[in-house]
């Protein structure tokens, strides 16, 4: 083994590619996902879902189903109301430009009165086995009166209202920025680039389908919910405070190993509520495991924007204004954080990496008879990046300026920088990431490669995406002023055992991110103790006091900052203990590499000696110092963090088939401080794959009747290994000044950057901007033909 490999293996602190602590259980099949949990006396739930996108529910007849063998209960929406089970809610209030609050419809866990999308639950069957539940579900008779469906967000505002509370199916008409300044910029512009953009609707498709187990204890009257959640405490809060299932202290939520989330497991879903409710009704645990095809109809979808955007340029290629009008489809009901995605997570990022003096964005959010839409990896920021990076690229082409040069000309170069859309960027070096990405992508050699492709009858193109995102979400007071119903701090508790080993309880949740490793790296480095003596505990509301969960690339920037704060307190307390042991004054105690020393002497105590003394408490009295060594902290960020970077995609296209081969990918990201480079690179790879999936193959398609046409893995194209080349990944670093570790966050960057890079590359190759996502082979082929026809006609 080389010495380099050996040093990588032995280093466990910040910056080391430590192999993941969690991996052993996953590679041996010993992970404990929710579906792997089996409760004594467990029953199985199956949901009867509406086959119609929009229908009045005239009658739900459960008699025949109830009499089927093995059936314990068949419950419909009316009973939910009788038992006073409350509705699901959207937790972020958005006000329209006229000051009126968003129009949130009632969202019962089981529909009664009306079904509003294909997949809307209308009844649940609880039975001894899945097979019995399936047999019984076929006997549930629902009498529907089918109503016309609203499926196209662009037309939703001219169609009959789905919910009475929202005339013209309009949830809000929101805006941000300075309309007058933008209009003036458009009038005085040398050139205006205009684009119509559809940001295609996606299905998140974490590989683990959602699962819920509700377990009501008749002795204690306590509820336990095991679920596939990214934020179990928020689930408990909503199910207690809004749904009213049980007081918060009588409900425990456990999210064990979770098989990916990408946003789709943030939300509080009907099935979780129903499993808890049904468990109390039948007095036994109730488990629901989602089928994949069911997941297409039951998990919140992502994106789905229809946008017109205009970018104004001055004489010298400087961007002088940006005007954006977006219709955002939120589906049939407002999911937990849906309202924030096309507003404060979208329009606030429209300045991109550029110094743009005037920006104005209008967003109309609409109801349609489709699955609810909410945050999906990147959430609003991929949509913003796509708008900005397409406009800049097309603008460069129209102005005849190299797209790299146009970007350089407009980059923000000094920090802090206040954009016209709320955000105050704190640190960055956009030129550095662009330059490094251009080197890695060998942009200089592109001309030759293009000629080589041409000789083979292939088209070759290159596309840039210089993205920015806002992560570390977020200062609680700031998001509160923007309508958030929650604070977005994070908590940590550091429990030091008498023998010196450490448990860290975090409010973040790991579902692939590797927190058990990265969080332990921080503790190992800070306390000078072996990483194997550190355990990370998360995902159980009975263990962790409170936390906001994991999404928005916040766990490093916010969650680890909370751990730093708690570690500060642990060190301060341990120094007090050491002072008594070493008979020195507390101010003279120094702590380094796991050892306490008295300054200027050779007196010292090891970490383990001090921790033991903290608990045996023989060296101090209770009046002098409390025994024990356990500290907690809540960290509320003072700003968002602003990861940014440059992704460059190179494609080769067969014009006869439209097949696009990604020939190269260079990603250079500035994530601030990196705890574990191996894990961070993995996050970039995964994000890029999802972004490429959106750009090239993924599409949730509804027909006019509101049926999801691409509703299974047979119809919805998921990225496969053969869709990608080896990705080249690099970093540049400017530290985030607002948190103690300088972390910016890395989870969403790839998904944010990739779609624009791909479409910019393909349109560069085929010489037309008339191409929508996903750029499938038939779509690219047709775009090439359309462009040829136009050219032919012109000649």
């Amino acid at each position, binding site marked *: 083994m080389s010495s380099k490999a050996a040093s990588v293996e032995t280093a466990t602190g910040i910056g080391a590619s430590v192999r993941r602590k969690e991996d052993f259980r996953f*590679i041996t099949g010993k992970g404990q996902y929710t579906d792997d949990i089996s409760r004594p006396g467990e029953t199985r739930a199956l949901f009867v879902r509406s086959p119609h996108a929009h229908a009045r529910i005239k009658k739900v007849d459960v008699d025949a189903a109830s009499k089927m063998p093995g059936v314990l209960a068949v419950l419909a929406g009316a009973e939910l109301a009788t038992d006073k089970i409350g509705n699901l809610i959207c937790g972020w209030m958005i006000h329209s430009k006229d000051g009126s609050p968003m129009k949130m419809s009632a969202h019962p866990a089981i529909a009664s009165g009306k079904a509003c999308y294909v997949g809307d639950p209308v009844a649940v069957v609880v039975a001894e086995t899945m097979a019995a539940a399936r047999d019984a579900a076929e006997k549930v008779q629902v009498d529907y009166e089918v109503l016309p469906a609203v499926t196209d967000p662009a037309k939703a505002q001219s169609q009959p209202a789905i919910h009475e509370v929202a005339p013209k199916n309009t949830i809000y008409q929101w805006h941000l920025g300075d309309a007058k300044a933008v209009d003036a910029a458009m009038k005085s512009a040398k050139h205006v680039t205009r684009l119509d953009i559809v940001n295609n609707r996606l299905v998140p498709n974490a*590989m683990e389908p959602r699962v819920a187990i509700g377990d009501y204890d008749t002795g204690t009257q306590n509820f336990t919910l095991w679920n596939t959640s990214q934020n179990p405490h928020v689930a408990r809060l909503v199910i207690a405070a809004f749904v009213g299932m049980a007081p918060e202290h009588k409900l425990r939520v456990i999210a064990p190993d979770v098989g990916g989330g990408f946003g789709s497991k943030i939300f509080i879903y009907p099935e979780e509520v129903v499993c808890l409710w049904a468990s109390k009704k039948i007095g036994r645990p109730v488990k629901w495991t989602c089928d994949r095809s069911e997941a297409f109809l039951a998990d919140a979808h992502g994106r789905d924007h229809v946008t017109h955007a205009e970018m104004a340029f001055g004489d010298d290629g400087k961007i002088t204004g940006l005007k954006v009008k977006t219709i955002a489809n939120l589906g049939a009901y407002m999911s937990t954080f849906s309202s924030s995605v096309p507003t404060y997570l979208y329009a606030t990022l429209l300045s991109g990496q550029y110094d743009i003096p005037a920006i104005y964005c209008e967003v109309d959010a609409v109801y349609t008879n489709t699955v609810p839409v909410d945050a999906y990896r990147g959430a609003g920021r991929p949509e913003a990046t796509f708008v900005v990076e397409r406009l800049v690229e097309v603008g460069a082409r129209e102005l005849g300026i190299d797209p790299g040069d146009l970007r350089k000309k407009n980059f923000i170069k000094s920090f802090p920088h206040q954009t016209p859309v709320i955000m105050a960027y704190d640190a960055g070096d956009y030129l550095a990431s662009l330059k490094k990405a251009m080197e890695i992508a060998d942009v200089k050699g592109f001309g030759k490669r293009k000629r080589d492709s041409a000789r083979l009858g292939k088209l070759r193109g290159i596309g840039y995406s210089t993205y920015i995102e806002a992560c570390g979400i977020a200062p609680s007071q700031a998001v509160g002023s923007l309508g958030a119903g929650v604070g977005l701090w994070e908590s940590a508790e550091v429990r030091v055992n008498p023998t010196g080993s450490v448990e860290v309880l975090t409010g973040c949740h790991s579902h692939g991110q590797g927190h058990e490793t990265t969080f332990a790296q921080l503790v190992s480095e800070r306390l000078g103790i072996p990483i194997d003596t550190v355990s990370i505990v998360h995902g159980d509301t009975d263990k962790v006091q409170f936390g906001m969960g994991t999404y928005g690339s916040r766990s490093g920037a916010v969650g680890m900052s909370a751990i730093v704060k708690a570690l500060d307190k642990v060190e301060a307390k341990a120094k007090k203990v050491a002072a008594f042991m070493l008979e020195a004054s507390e101010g003279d105690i120094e702590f380094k590499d796991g050892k306490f020393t008295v300054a200027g002497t050779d007196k010292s105590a090891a970490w383990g000696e001090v921790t033991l003394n903290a608990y045996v408490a023989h060296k101090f009295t209770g009046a002098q110092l409390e025994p024990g060594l356990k500290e907690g902290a809540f960290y509320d960020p003072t700003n968002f963090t602003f990861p940014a970077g440059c992704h460059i995609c190179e494609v080769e296209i067969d014009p006869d088939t439209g097949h696009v081969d990604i020939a190269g990918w260079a990603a250079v990201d500035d994530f601030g401080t990196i705890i574990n480079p191996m894990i961070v690179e993995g996050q970039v790879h995964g994000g890029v794959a999802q972004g490429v999936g959106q750009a090239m193959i993924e599409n949730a398609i509804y027909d006019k009747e509101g049926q999801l046409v691409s509703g299974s893995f047979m119809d919805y194209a998921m990225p496969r290994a053969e869709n990608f080349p080896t990705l080249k990944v690099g970093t540049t670093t400017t530290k985030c000044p607002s948190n103690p570790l300088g972390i910016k966050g890395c989870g969403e960057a790839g998904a944010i950057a990739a779609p624009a890079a791909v479409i910019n590359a393909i349109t560069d190759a085929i010489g037309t901007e008339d191409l929508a996502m996903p750029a499938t082979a038939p779509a690219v082929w047709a775009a090439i033909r359309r462009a040829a026809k136009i050219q032919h006609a012109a000649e």
Partner: protein
Amino acid sequence: MPSVSMTVNGKAVTADVDSRTLLVQFLREHLRLTGTHVGCDTSQCGACLIHLNGIAVKSCTTLALQCEGATVLTIEGLAAPDGPLHPMQEAFRENHGLQCGFCTPGMVMSAVDMVNRKGNELDEHTIRQELDGNLCRCTGYHNIVKAIAAGAKAMKGSSPAA
């Protein structure tokens, strides 16, 4: 209910099962071998991939009753209990070939089958083509491809997994 007998991870098992019981249900629910996962219902994702008589099979589209007398190997049986990890398992850990871990058992079993069929020297193109039946949403496949190439090399000399 009909009875079925098979050898799973070297142990003889017999059980009475509903005739529509899938092999994956038999493994997960009857034998509590929950390392084999269910990620879809259309035989696309490969999270349920196991070895049936030495050949990679999706256990979500195999009836338990079809496996009468068969030898089944799941992720739990790939390495000997208390023994070292299988080289392919080790390669996935070493190369960060997993994130959430849900597709991992199927990926590892698929990779071992790939080596059994194609040998120890697997190039990137071959690995990507051969992974057609396994979906991962976390890794972008980048490190899975690296892990399989490394694991294949490391398996040289070891006897093929049964």
